[in-house]
């Protein structure tokens, strides 16, 4: 084939590719990607008195993320309440990731070392909760940890405790809930990494008198590291933006960033602040996902 004809075919292929993708891209532009631009614009406007905005440029939205203006003398001070919410969000997201890893790694290892025929069944058992309504799963965990819930009933019956443990509406409840709902996001990439792991390396390790701990630390963990990074980010990112779980299990007090954003909009508090918080969350998530892409690429390319 002549290079001119090749070039023409290539161009036609690109044109068709774009044309066929156009309806999907248009829909996303209108109802998913485009609206994000509005958020950026709103973060630089002046808050209206009863919610909404006044179309005047202002840095206030961004400034009030960290500082609050004293109502009497107008001086700026650190907004402690906001910092508490950020700190809680980051802390709970990191702890969720750690708990999910502590439970998810053995689980993924267990699934990957099952006989091939059983493996699909175990994987399916992990994927069902993954696709099930987040709200339903949050209600389910509430059933277990509430004052008259399964845990308290069993512990009371067994005489371990005399009064029901107050778990619900605490940070611990949010942590348990998030670890529960996001666990499958940790197990699936870990399984993918462990599934590719060459078990003969273990034999080599044991032959050279490595202890189990050494084999785990020096052979297994370094090799499945891309899966660990991927799973951790996949759990950390939705945890940081969580809304439903802290709302249901945290009660009104134990807000995370997602609930704080809602408060700015629905209670008509301060739309530009809510917009600035949303942009911040978006930037953090994007950076985390870039790390994810790098980890995932390294995982697929053994020489990377």
């Amino acid at each position, binding site marked *: 084939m002549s290079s001119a004809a090749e070039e023409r075919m290539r161009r036609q292929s690109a044109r068709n590719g774009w044309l*066929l993708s156009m309806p999907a891209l248009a829909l996303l532009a209108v109802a998913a990607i485009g609206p994000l631009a509005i958020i950026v614009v709103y973060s630089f406007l002046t808050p209206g008195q009863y919610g909404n905005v006044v179309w005047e440029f202002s840095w206030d939205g961004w400034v009030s993320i960290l500082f609050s203006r004293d109502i009497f003398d107008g001086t700026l001070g650190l907004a402690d309440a906001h910092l508490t919410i950020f700190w809680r969000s980051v802390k709970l997201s990191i702890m969720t990731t750690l708990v999910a890893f502590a439970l998810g790694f053995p689980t993924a290892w267990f699934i990957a070392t099952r006989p091939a025929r059983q493996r699909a069944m175990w994987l399916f058992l992990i994927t069902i909760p993954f696709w099930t309504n*987040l709200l339903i799963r949050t209600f389910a965990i509430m059933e277990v940890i509430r004052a008259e819930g399964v845990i308290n009933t069993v512990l009371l019956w067994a005489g371990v405790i005399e009064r029901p443990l107050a778990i619900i509406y605490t940070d611990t409840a949010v942590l348990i809930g998030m670890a529960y709902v996001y666990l499958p996001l940790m197990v699936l990439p870990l399984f993918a990494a462990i599934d590719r792991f060459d078990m003969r390396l273990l034999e080599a390790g044991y032959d050279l008198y490595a202890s189990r701990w050494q084999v785990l630390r020096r052979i297994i963990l370094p090799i499945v590291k891309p899966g660990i990074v991927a799973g951790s980010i996949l759990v950390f990112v939705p945890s940081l933006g969580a809304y*439903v779980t802290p709302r249901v299990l945290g009660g009104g007090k134990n807000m995370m960033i997602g609930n704080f954003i809602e408060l700015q909009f629905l209670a008509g508090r301060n739309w530009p602040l809510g917009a600035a918080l949303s942009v911040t969350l978006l930037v953090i998530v994007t950076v985390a996902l870039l790390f994810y892409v790098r980890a995932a690429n390294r995982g697929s390319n053994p020489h990377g």
Partner: protein
Amino acid sequence: MAERRYEISRIPGFATIAVATFVMLYLPIAALVTYSFNAGNSVAVWEGFSLHWYEKAWANQAVKDATVRSLTIAVCAAVISTAVATLAAMGTTRRARFRGDTFIYVAINQPLMVPEIVTAVALMILFGMVKQATGYQGLGYLILAHSAFCIPFAYLPIRARLEGMDLSFETAAADLYASPWQTFRHVTLPLLGPGILAGAMLAFVISLDDVIITEFVKSGGQDTLPTYMLGQLRRTMTPEVNAISSALLALTVLLLTAFFLLTRKRD
């Protein structure tokens, strides 16, 4: 004494933790479903088996309306997102790489990456403006929003199916003077069928389950099943919520099982 085979890949404690994890994963769901059959009106004290709460939920007009609304939105969103996702999958697989194909791929998967609360707030502002300008308050906004975030869920299984199909059938059809449309209609589409069905089912499940975006976009009195359940939190919870949850759960599991049977590799 039976000889125990030495398993090189066994790490002490891992199997125990794994089994415990599976129990922890399913115990809350089991509790939720169990109490949906409770005869009493507590979600904590068991008073015997009954279908009372299912009947009650079924007779509740608010639940009925929310169910119809949820299903309407989910069907529309599944059809729209699957249609555009099929076209996009055709445009981005089985052809030479072209300028911008990575951009298209990232754009299509964007709803998977942005925190839902951010999209929800953005849509609330945008649709709020449109609602004010046009006066239209209908379900269209929810259908539009759901169609958009369902696109990646429809796209990925269709793309996976397409990547597993080689071009020889289509080339053969073209050699026999089939027009591109005939080739698509009689060759590609039937082969792609299971992928499209799988994509549509995932989109349906995702739309049916959505809470956050729906909560922010809906106009007054447009509760779907999940937002109705979220609203019940403010009251004393009765097993009615468990009954609705269990019914939704059953539907999801049913669709997922069908999905896995459809996409299962034949080897």
